[in-house]
């Protein structure tokens, strides 16, 4: 049953005061790349931890002229992505799309689309844990101090210990990186494969952590360097020789899938919108 938001609720759900606060915070975030700017963070009609930070950013930006794409794990049709799109549609007249090249705003959880973000687009990340130093320090008060003093020895030591123990850095997704040679930031749980796309890009990247109440940003053409050692360089995920069984691509991020009946392992594009377009291209002579 769909609640009639249009009559009962504000344009873009939030009251204007809330939007202004998010906007002021976002402008500050853009002026200090990678720094987590605190904001009040309203409770949204979706769960805390289910994309409320990204959603608040989207709602502070969106107008009827916008075209919105929402993905979860790269997938437009994932239920949470659909749910977020549905909410935005219920309180705005904005159009929605699965085509990342048509979108003006893209809200994402855990992926960056394969086609690079353009200057006229904004990519909005849902962030569960915005503090990259949390893995070495539990207290917010202390991590804030560490950032202030640019004291990043703890996290470097953690990476070094990883190498001693495992022979390589064991961080999978959400790989920490340095923004504008000043702040270490969490890129949200995108795969390492996506991290280099943040470096000196054409588009603007906004990060919203609703439960942890932080907004941060990577402006265009900003240095983003994954933490690594000279002799242990940063590595992205390996898909050596694997191809997508739907579009045949061998240069995209792939999901590993098991066939229920045969137990056979195969691969499929994680970016479903892009995969769809490639399939269409393959089938048009």
């Amino acid at each position, binding site marked *: 049953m769909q609640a009639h938001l249009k009559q009962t609720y504000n344009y873009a759900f939030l009251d204007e005061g809330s939007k202004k606060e998010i906007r002021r915070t976002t402008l500050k975030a853009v002026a200090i790349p990678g720094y987590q700017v605190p904001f009040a963070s309203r409770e949204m009609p979706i769960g805390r931890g289910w994309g409320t930070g990204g959603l608040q950013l989207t709602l502070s930006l969106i107008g009827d002229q916008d075209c919105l794409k929402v993905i979860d794990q790269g997938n437009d049709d994932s239920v949470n992505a659909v749910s977020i799109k549905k909410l935005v549609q219920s309180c705005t007249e904005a159009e929605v799309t699965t085509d990342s090249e048509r979108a003006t705003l893209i809200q994402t959880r855990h992926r960056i689309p394969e086609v690079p973000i353009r200057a006229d687009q904004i990519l909005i990340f849902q962030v569960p844990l915005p503090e990259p130093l949390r893995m070495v320090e539990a207290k917010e008060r202390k991590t804030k101090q560490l950032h202030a003093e640019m004291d990043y020895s703890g996290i470097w030591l953690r990476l070094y210990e990883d190498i001693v123990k495992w022979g390589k850095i064991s961080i999978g997704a959400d790989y920490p990186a340095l923004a504008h040679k000043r702040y270490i930031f969490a890129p949200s749980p995108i795969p390492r494969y996506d991290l280099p796309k943040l470096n000196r890009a054409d588009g*603007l990247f906004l990060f919203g952590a609703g439960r942890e109440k932080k907004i941060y940003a990577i402006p265009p053409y900003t240095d983003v360097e994954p933490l690594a050692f000279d002799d242990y360089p940063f590595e992205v995920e390996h898909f050596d020789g694997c191809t997508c069984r739907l579009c045949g691509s061998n240069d995209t991020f792939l999901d590993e899938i098991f066939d229920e009946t045969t137990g056979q392992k195969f691969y499929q594009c994680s970016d479903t919108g892009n995969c769809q377009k490639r399939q269409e291209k393959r089938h048009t002579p």
Partner: protein
Amino acid sequence: MTNANAFHHVHDTRKLYRRLLDSMARPGKINDIADLLRGVPETCPCSPGTYALAQTLLDQQVSFYYYSQELNADDAERAIEWTTGSRHTASDAADYWFIDTSPEIDEIDSIMQSVRIGTLTEPEKSATIALHVRKLSGADDLTLPMILRGPGINGWHLLSAEGMNIEWLRLRSERNRDYPTGCDFVLFDDDGQIAALPRTTRIERRGF
């Protein structure tokens, strides 16, 4: 009766914000907000640019400081307070500055000395200065040409301004010396063009 062309507190503030965000993310990039300024009431005692930026950025949660020599500053303060709910405050406490006419050099100095720049732990507790200039241009054709570099800029970017004292740049670089502390500038001109200079932007005077 409401005027359909009046500045809309939901849609026009959002449109202005999007252009401001674009300018902030791409320092020196000029965005045009002239279409939005047409809705500003003619009786408004401050400039349309100040009015529109104030409606977009201010509410009860933040404070502002208004500076003008020519216009009636008290009326403008009052109008901004009434329409936004924001409080006019002492200059060294203000979150947002609106500088509607160009001050003398010693006044620029006192403004820049009292502007909040945040702290190392809380660099966001800094002021944003909205500075009214006569004209902005992306070409090398006005009295104050600037070469910009830094985040948001692919290599370098040219911005020039008319009616902006060079003293602003000198004092800005002085206050913004210890990144991440510093203040951010929003420039707006008589024709409804805006550009931004966040604290990360390094400015060279052309011909230095």
